[in-house]
């Protein structure tokens, strides 16, 4: 094991971003539906959200000068890693119910784990985050677990 993960990095495990509060509007649902090519009437009409609609809600809204040169906002939840090449990750979501027009949501993103493994071509760092979407009243909507790999 390469021992790449410092105490400063692993101390971040369990941290959460500030809760995002959002009211789901028909207009936001319709924008998402037409841009993804949805065919179901409930999505096109903006009554209900397709399964991955919530992804846009975790994007931080920052002015252009606050973004990196590649256009991305610095991820405050994930600490700087000693391996810089981020390989595309995976996403797994469990649904309790669909997001609907008019829902008032509380969205939490937390860092569940950071661990390292020895890969075939060298060390790999795995970063696991979770997005928890519920209503302001605490009704669970969905949990999405996302994994990133750095090498």
């Amino acid at each position, binding site marked *: 094991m390469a021992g790449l993960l410092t105490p400063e990095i692993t101390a971040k495990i369990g941290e959460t971003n500030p809760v995002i509060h959002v009211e789901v509007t028909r207009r*936001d649902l319709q*924008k*998402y539906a*037409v*841009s*993804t*090519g*949805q*065919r*179901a009437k409930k*999505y096109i009409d903006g009554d209900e959200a*397709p*399964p*991955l609609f919530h*992804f*846009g809600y975790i*994007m931080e*809204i920052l002015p*252009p000068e606050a*973004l990196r040169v*590649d*256009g*991305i906002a610095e991820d405050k939840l994930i600490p700087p890693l000693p391996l810089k090449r981020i390989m*595309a*990750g*995976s*996403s*797994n*979501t*469990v*649904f309790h119910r*669909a997001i609907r027009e008019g829902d008032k949501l509380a969205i939490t993103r937390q860092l569940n784990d950071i661990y390292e493994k020895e890969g075939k071509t060298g060390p790999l760092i795995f970063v696991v985050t979770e997005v928890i979407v519920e209503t302001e009243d605490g009704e669970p909507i969905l949990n999405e677990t996302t994994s990133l790999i750095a090498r």
Partner: protein
Amino acid sequence: MLSYEDITVGSELPSRDHTATIVQLFMYNAAIWNPHRIHFDHAYATEEEGYDAIVLDGPLQGDWIGQVVTDWIGEDATLVSFGYANRRAAYLGETMTAGGQVEEKNNETKEIKVSLYLKNAQGEVTIPGHAVVRF
């Protein structure tokens, strides 16, 4: 009307081709508020990051395989879980085919597990996925 009893393990879900235009990609990234330049700045994507062309968002491709399931079940079943992984890049102008197959039936829970894929014209899977639906 889709009924649990009529679905057989191994059967294919209806597939669909997607060819995103630059306008669609702009609309998608505006809708989700994603300013990552590889999705709209050709010179930056190719010269600075070494991609072949403007890159299709992974979650957009994930949505396309999600639609294979949501279009298939309509109002006849509910989505219990859905997952996808980013395996390789897909580019603006490519025609991507989204499809899937029934993998398992659970007669006690009335749940069905399906595997999903998004393939490019060369048949390479860029985004594999899976879902569980409940009748």
